[in-house]
């Protein structure tokens, strides 16, 4: 037993240490309880009544939630998550047990908060904010909620993990944060409120739609966020006045690169956006915001993200390089949303890209091909034929047609001219022309340079908006119907099947020609006899306008379902490479339900699809019109049967697209051809020409 004795002797000093530690544990425990006592009087329970059950497939919490009293007059702040269901009525249970009706004063979609007002004649115990300077990582942090038990707050204890998270908007903590305490306070050991607990999705600068439930999947994970109360109090008067506070936008794109190491250089400026109004230009380097030096894109976000729409920023830019570089001081007022992008229009229809090599249209090759051109719509005028023959015109972009009444028409550009420059930018592809024009707005005026018969012309034009009409056949150059007739015969339908997919697609291919064909995907009823009929009817248009007609069939004979979407997306990819489709002429179309599916497909596949043609199909109710994007131009063609009962609905949808800046076109067809599944000849021809004109600019 000498062994044991030895241990006892050794342990004597440890014993007193343990005692001290235990005493410290008790003191800490007492301090936490005292802090909770101080803060808990400002924590209320909130009940909501009515509203939706689900948001984007996620079932919304139905239980009581938490809020924090921030003024004696009854202002209460809570997490936007708690109001995602958009309740019809709100009840607040004050800490003294009284129930009060409350109304939403406003939302803050930058910090994911909601401000409530309860009707009260009593002075309410407002939370005391903790000074930001006193909050440091490692400090005790206690999260309070009132969802479990109205009589007693719930408590989770941890530390402050980090400051200035979410680009300077939130404190990070390791306490358990979840729907049980969203809207409740994160307090310090003195019982002062450091912040309001909210779910926030980490690092998602590009997310356009602010989803109030984003980040809630990280509940109880050791990563929680709280919006500093001092930041909320700083804007609360304005919040009450303006009701809703929004994230502030500049309206610029940045040159791509690692955001933590790449300098913020403006890649493009959204027309009419705050940055455009302040005079920013592509190529400008952002040097400082409100006097704070900016080295990286992340630095820039830290300066802009905490601000709201309506805030003014003093931004210093550096423009130009080397000795010519100059500093420019600007003042920019952040906007809630960017004005819809309106595609500017010059009035030029470029030559169709050459077959098999659609991206790089080399003018020399195009010229060589011209004499061999045997398609109807590419008939060559004498004048341009002469130019092609001399073989000297290798620069610029060949003009196939001029839109009647367009700025180009007014300025005197003609078919056969070659466009050399827009502004001072050399142009020899459609891509370059669009890139140049997308930085402009309708109404802007600019200078063009073109070449005609060896002479350079300088023209001044004022840009218009993309037109709504479809070009007449005559505007495209007289179509040689006889030639088309010569190509017609028995249409040969072929079948395309994708590996591992049960669906099949039938297609009709135009005869090989000099220019890349367009693609018309028709989402029909999927019956093969219809495909035969379709092929017979569409053959002329397909030959004349060089279109591949692709008619996929749904997996389920009952019709199209959402499950077919993946198949269609893959089919489009396959078709694009299989036939070397001209990327500016990929169109999905359909009638009725097929048209609605075409909308769904087009709005999801905007990188690929350039046009959607819907026959008697309103926009599906589940779809919203997304923001227009200059780089993913999507043209909308609505074909409506005369006196269709759906007409008012369809026109309303079309207006929505037009308001958002999309190029929309409407065709009203006469409804006499009953029983015929597809369109009448005139409408088919118009649809073909619409596709033919999709690369206009």
């Amino acid at each position, binding site marked *: 037993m000498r062994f044991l004795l030895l241990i006892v002797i050794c342990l004597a000093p440890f014993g007193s240490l343990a005692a001290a530690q235990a005493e410290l544990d008790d003191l800490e425990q007492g301090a936490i309880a005292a802090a909770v006592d101080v803060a808990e009087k400002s924590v209320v329970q909130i009940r909501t*009544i009515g509203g939706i059950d689900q948001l984007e497939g996620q079932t919304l919490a139905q239980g009581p939630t938490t809020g924090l009293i921030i003024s004696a007059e009854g202002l209460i702040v809570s997490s936007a998550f708690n109001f995602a269901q958009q309740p019809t009525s709100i009840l607040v249970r004050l800490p003294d047990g009284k129930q009060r009706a409350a109304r939403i004063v406003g939302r803050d979609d930058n910090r994911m908060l909601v401000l409530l007002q309860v009707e009260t004649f009593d002075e309410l115990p407002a939370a005391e904010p903790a000074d930001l300077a006193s909050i440091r990582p490692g400090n005790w942090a206690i999260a309070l909620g009132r969802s479990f*038990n109205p009589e*007693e707050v719930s408590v989770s204890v941890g530390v402050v993990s980090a400051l200035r998270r979410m680009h300077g908007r939130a404190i990070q903590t390791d306490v358990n944060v979840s729907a049980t305490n969203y809207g409740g306070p994160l307090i310090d050991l003195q019982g002062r409120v450091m912040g309001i607990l909210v779910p926030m999705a980490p690092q998602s600068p590009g997310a356009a739609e602010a989803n109030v439930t984003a980040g809630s999947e990280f509940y109880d994970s050791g990563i929680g966020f709280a919006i500093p109360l001092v930041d909320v109090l700083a804007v609360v008067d304005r919040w009450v006045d303006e009701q809703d506070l929004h994230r502030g936008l500049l309206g610029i794109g940045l040159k791509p690169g690692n955001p933590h190491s790449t300098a913020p250089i403006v890649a493009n400026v959204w027309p009419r956006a705050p940055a455009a109004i302040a005079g920013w230009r592509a190529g400008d380097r952002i040097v400082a915001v409100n006097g704070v030096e900016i080295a990286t894109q992340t630095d820039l976000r830290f300066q802009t993200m905490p601000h709201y729409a309506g805030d003014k920023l003093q931004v210093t830019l550096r423009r130009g390089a080397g000795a010519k570089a100059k500093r420019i001081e600007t003042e920019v007022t952040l906007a809630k949303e960017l004005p819809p992008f309106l595609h500017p229009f010059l009035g030029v229809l470029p030559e169709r890209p050459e077959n098999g090599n659609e991206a790089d249209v080399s003018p020399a090759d195009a010229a060589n091909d011209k004499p061999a051109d045997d398609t109807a719509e590419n008939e060559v005028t004498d004048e341009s034929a002469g130019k092609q023959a001399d073989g000297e015109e290798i620069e610029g972009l060949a003009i196939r047609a001029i839109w009647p009444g367009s700025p180009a028409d007014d300025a005197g550009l003609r078919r056969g001219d070659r466009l050399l420059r827009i502004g001072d930018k050399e142009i020899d592809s459609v891509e370059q022309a669009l890139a140049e024009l997308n930085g402009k707005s309708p109404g802007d005026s600019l200078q063009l340079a073109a070449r005609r018969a060896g002479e350079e012309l300088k023209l001044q034009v004022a840009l218009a908006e993309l037109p709504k009409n479809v070009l007449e056949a005559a505007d495209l150059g007289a179509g040689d119907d006889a030639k088309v007739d010569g190509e017609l015969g028995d249409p040969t339908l072929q079948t395309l099947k994708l590996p591992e997919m049960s669906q099949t697609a039938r297609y009709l291919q135009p005869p090989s020609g000099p220019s890349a064909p367009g693609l018309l995907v028709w989402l029909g009823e999927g019956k093969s006899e219809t495909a035969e009929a379709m092929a017979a009817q569409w053959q002329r248009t397909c030959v004349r306008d060089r279109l591949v007609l692709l008619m996929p069939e749904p997996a389920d004979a009952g019709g199209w379902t959402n499950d077919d979407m993946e198949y269609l997306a893959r089919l489009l990819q396959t078709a694009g490479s299989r036939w070397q489709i001209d990327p500016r002429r990929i169109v999905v179309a359909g009638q009725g339900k097929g048209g609605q599916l075409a909308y769904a497909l087009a709005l999801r596949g905007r990188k690929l699809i350039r046009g959607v043609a819907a026959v008697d199909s309103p926009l599906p109710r589940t779809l919203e019109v997304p923001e227009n994007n200059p780089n993913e131009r999507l043209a909308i063609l609505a074909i409506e049967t005369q006196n269709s009962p759906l007409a008012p609905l369809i026109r309303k949808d079309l207006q929505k697209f037009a308001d958002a800046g999309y190029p929309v076109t409407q065709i009203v067809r006469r409804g006499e051809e009953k029983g015929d599944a597809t369109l009448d000849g005139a409408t088919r021809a118009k649809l073909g020409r619409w596709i033919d004109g999709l690369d206009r600019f």
Partner: protein
Amino acid sequence: MCAPRDRFLSLFLSALAVASFPTALTVMPPIAAARSLHDSIRDAQRKVVKIYGAGGVSGLEAYQTGILISAEGHVLTVQSYVLDTDELGVVLDDGRKFTADILGVDPVRELAVLKLPVEDDALPHFNLAASPAAKVGDRVLAVSNLFNIAGGDEPVSALQGVVSAISPLDARRGSHQANYHGNVYIVDAAANNPGAAGGALVNWRGELLGLLGKELRSSATGAWLHYAIPVDQFVASVESMENGQTVADSAADSPKATDPLSLGDVGIVLVPDILPRTPPYIDSVVDDSAAARAGLRPDDLLVLVEGEPTASCAAVVDQVGRRESFDDVRISVLRAGQLIEFTLNAEPIESPDPANEQQGPDDENVAPDESDAVNRDEPADEPDAEPSNAEDVSVDNRDGSSTDGNDRPVE
């Protein structure tokens, strides 16, 4: 089963283990009251056992945790599929392994008491009778073999946190509501993960506070819960299980009335309940009913019954049903953004004194007119809608209750 020789060996080893652990010795009186966190963890770990049984397929773990509750080898754990085997293995902190028998189960709390065939009677154990209660904010330890991290004589895992809340358990597993609805300790440690059920929740002195439950999601938020059932909620049940009894399902926890009050009794017709959360708007008020006399109106939103929030039609029906048919019922409605409280008197007393706690601001003038108007319209338009049913119900009630001798004016 351990062979006798093995057991002797393991006894010897465990004696060594104890000897090498000074804090287990009782020879340090000055600091006995203030033990360190380390001591508390070690002390609790010795009283927690690893349980191995059925399972092991399709995401069902074949292990859980239990706690020793007697020196003779009684083990408390959760009742689960893991126990559905004849070869239920229990491994003590010192590594000894036994095959346990099930003495009794409590299907409401989903608990089971096992007995280990031990011959010594000096096992370290939690004393249920001497277990303290915890408060919200108290620092706690969850001690269990979660994720089966520990094997053999390895001590089980300890997690620290605080008691977040003490609240009735409102939880579900999949689509099934949990059987137990009593109070639980909600903790802010990730305590209830696979294998943790049956583990101990102890305070920083190592004293047992509760038993960690199975993995459940909150019905209110859908979030996973971390919780333990407090000792006082199961101490009586454990006693009967130890005596080999299977506890009968006596979970009459919802205070249902014997002769429940209905909305018809007070003359309220809610809007048709078509959604899970149909807001409880009053569709119409039956003429001459308690609701009409109190001044309730169509389109009032009925948000509180007896102070309990009622966010849906179903919640109103449930809350009203907890009152007896002869009880007054206190309700609050939202009307034009104002919260107004009323007390409804189920009995149709033709009293000349209408001052039965009416609190509506302008009841006297407006209410009678409106309820009249409602009554003229409703029965005519919808002959078999609720108003007439409601009348029937209240007539029934009158008949029924007049037999128990209450004097009330009939007709």
